[in-house]
């Protein structure tokens, strides 16, 4: 299917159109399931002023952490950050704005963005700083906060396998935020471990249908482990 052949052969092609001050969503939970090569390419290109939406912000020298070295992130939207010294420094100095968002609200805001839902009520954060300035409402005696959805100029995800038409499957907990992020970008790029021919992925078990994916690139992954824990017998 020529019109649906989405494989690109270079990171330059993969990120074509990404420019300063754009909003970029990046999949992954900690260092698990992150599009390593695409992040590295943003670093190499030196694109700055980015608003970055991702559950975490990497560690010193790996993942989104490398973008801090050149101050490429202007605003970081995440649920949990500060696993690295550089982040802490830029956060405290005010060089970078950080908008903390509860993890489930973050996931749902991204899912809503991709699904054409501009806003929804959630119980999360009611009565806390998260609800400040936001509309609240009671349903059946419980209180809810109105949250608006997120979309992005570019969505960068990491998948296990893709076919050339952009259908994706993820592996284990490396799935995390990737499926929703894949739906919420004007341009969605998937960096994957393996690219197969259409028909090789079972249509019954595709996690992200190709309609959401604009470009597919085969990456190589270090898969660095953040907390190496081993059973002690």
């Amino acid at each position, binding site marked *: 299917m020529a019109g649906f052949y989405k494989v690109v052969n270079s990171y330059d092609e993969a990120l074509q159109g990404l420019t300063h001050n754009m909003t970029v969503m990046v999949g992954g939970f900690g260092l698990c399931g992150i599009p390593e090569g695409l992040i590295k390419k943003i670093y190499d290109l030196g694109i700055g002023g980015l608003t970055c939406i991702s559950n975490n912000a990497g560690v010193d020298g790996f993942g989104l952490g490398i973008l801090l070295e050149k101050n490429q992130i202007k605003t970081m939207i995440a649920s949990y*950050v500060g696993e690295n010294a550089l982040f802490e420094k830029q956060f405290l100095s005010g060089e970078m704005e950080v908008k903390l968002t*509860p993890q489930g609200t973050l996931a749902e805001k991204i899912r809503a963005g991709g699904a054409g839902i501009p806003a929804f009520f959630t119980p999360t954060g009611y009565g806390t700083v998260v609800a400040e300035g936001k509309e609240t409402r009671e349903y059946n005696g419980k209180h809810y906060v109105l949250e608006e959805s997120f979309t992005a100029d570019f969505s960068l995800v990491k998948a*296990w396998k893709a076919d050339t038409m952009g259908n994706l499957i993820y592996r284990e*907990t490396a799935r995390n935020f990737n499926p929703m992020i894949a739906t919420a970008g004007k341009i969605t790029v998937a960096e994957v471990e393996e690219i197969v021919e259409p028909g090789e992925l079972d249509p019954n078990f595709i996690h992200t249908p190709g309609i959401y994916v604009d470009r597919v690139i085969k990456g190589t992954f270090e898969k660095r482990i953040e*907390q190496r824990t081993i059973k002690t017998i």
Partner: protein
Amino acid sequence: MALSREQIAQRISQELKDGYYVNLGIGIPTLVANYVPKGMDVLFQSENGLLGMGEFPTEETIDPDLINAGKQTVTAVTGASYFSSAESFAMIRGGHIDLTVLGAFEVDQKGNIASWMIPGKLVKGMGGAMDLVASARNIIVAMAHANKQGESKILKSCNLPLTGVHCVRKVVTDLAVLELREGAFHLLERAPGVSVEDIKKLTEADLYIPEHVPEMAF
């Protein structure tokens, strides 16, 4: 004597029931998994997208694609499933988790909990804690009864920024098991060798003390 972290976890494990789906927070709550009563089946949910979290892996089975919400490498039990973060929090927010155990800096008698932010210190974020406390049907808080200066962390009203409101039901500390009923903490059990007086002294919140307060049994 005040309970150790392990003993707090052990006491909380008595609240488990066969067939429970449970989410354990980071810290003491994680230890609860080590004390599931024999013959009882419990499934642990990890909010990054795993239902059926198992023990830590061996050097041979370690897998960077398989971590828990604390970013530790783990395994999955037979019958586990993986899903997205949106699905995971749909599960949490929709009230499908039977029991949530999490740590806290402070709780108060309105059922409020503060666990994510200390002004003046670096704020790392709330992660999934606000979703969990806003949604769980059944929340147990595992925490120290007082800080090192002897100041109570069981309060009339939390001082720190809140994680959630009107959500705490039960608190297990190093000194006591407390249950919140109609705006007061009821002292259900005390740690072995800890007196009711000791607990009263370290509890700022309104405390209801029944005639008989048994020692915890392990």
